[in-house]
């Protein structure tokens, strides 16, 4: 068991969004988080990434295994595609640049400034970063946004390869992915907190 979440409640802006969230993630498996806009997918992922504290409950994430990919891709427009990836490689102490470029069909754009990429090309660069980090647990927030059909297929393949190699992923998405049965889909709707639920720091005043 790589990562486990037990009875976690997630809050944002003073309100509890999700409560009782419980799941485990195994190596080679993926968890797909679904749920309507505003249910709390992003907030949950940020909690798992350690950017935000859980309102209550336990989140167990082993150190240095997780990489987070957000709505924004953290791309520097003034650096070239390769330079962007190199930087993350250096930060994570890895250097599998070429594989990442090839996998997301970015070789031709290698020396193009990232500012000159189209929306989908930027997204692909953001995804290529995952490969560069060498981390085994991927937290992906709507990875298919802006991707054309070919790129979505490619992403699917990358994900399957990653799972096949013993990696794992937690993916918030609105589009269907085909992960060959290796995934567990969790509809966050069933953890939705009542609208009156307040975060602990707000409760304190009542």
């Amino acid at each position, binding site marked *: 068991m790589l990562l486990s979440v037990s009875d976690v409640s997630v809050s944002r802006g003073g309100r509890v969004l999700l409560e009782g969230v419980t799941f485990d993630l195994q190596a080679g498996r993926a968890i797909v988080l679904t749920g309507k806009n505003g249910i709390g997918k992003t907030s949950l992922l940020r909690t798992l*990434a*350690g*950017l*935000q*504290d859980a309102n209550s409950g336990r989140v167990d994430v082993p150190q*240095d295994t*997780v*990489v*987070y990919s*957000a*709505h*924004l*891709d*953290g*791309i*520097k*427009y*003034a*650096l070239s595609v390769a*330079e962007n990836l*190199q*930087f*993350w490689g*250096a*930060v*994570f*102490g890895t250097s599998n640049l070429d594989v990442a470029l090839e996998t997301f069909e970015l070789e031709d754009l290698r020396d193009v400034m990232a500012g000159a990429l189209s929306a989908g090309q930027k997204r692909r660069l953001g995804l290529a*970063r995952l490969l560069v980090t060498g981390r085994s647990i991927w937290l992906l927030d709507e990875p298919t946004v802006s991707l054309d059909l070919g790129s979505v297929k490619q992403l699917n393949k990358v994900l399957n390869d990653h799972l096949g190699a013993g990696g794992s992923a937690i993916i918030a998405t609105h589009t269907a992915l085909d992960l060959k049965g290796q995934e567990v889909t969790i509809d966050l709707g069933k953890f939705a907190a009542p609208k009156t639920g307040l975060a602990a720091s707000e409760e304190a005043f009542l």
Partner: protein
Amino acid sequence: MNALLVRDLKLAIRAGGGFGLALAFFLIVIVLVPLGVGPEMDILSKIAPGVLWLGALLACLLSLDRIFALDYEDGTLDLLVTSPLPLEAVIITKALAHWITTSLPLVVVAPLLAVLLGLPANGYLWLAISLLLGSPALSLIGTFGAALTLGLKRGGLLLSVLVLPLYIPTLIFGAEVAQRGIDGAAVQTPLLLLAGISFGTAAVLPFASSAVLRINLR
């Protein structure tokens, strides 16, 4: 760490003359002062050390919002915080990059520009030394301020209002060193205090800044 420093310097340069701009701004401020207060050299040379220090302060200030804001806006900061780099190291590196692109060039040219304000010749050396010793504190304090105002869009004015008061001790001791240098008085005490501020902020502020950053990203 190195990669981050190199990247920040690269970005500063590609964004169009990272080094040159702070200098140009400094020069302009030095030119504006006489235009505002009048051309009499005797008055100007009296206020010269203070004006030069204030100019350096402002040049520093105006480039602070680049330290974190760009990385915050494009999501890089989220990714950096969840990366294996210790956040304090990230912060020190960013302060260093800021110091190299902004303060270092100022230290070098300040004595040249001092000519324009008729700074007495025996003040040049002490002016440069005071800037060299004091400017790291400016970058470190500024980094802290930048971390505080992170969540705010275009918080440039708020940032100034937060940071300038924190700059006061550095400014006072810095200008004092330069002034005493001119007067031929003993500079030791303010010089030590100035160096003390720089070392003290380097030792302590990165921890405060990293706490602030984490809170702002929450």
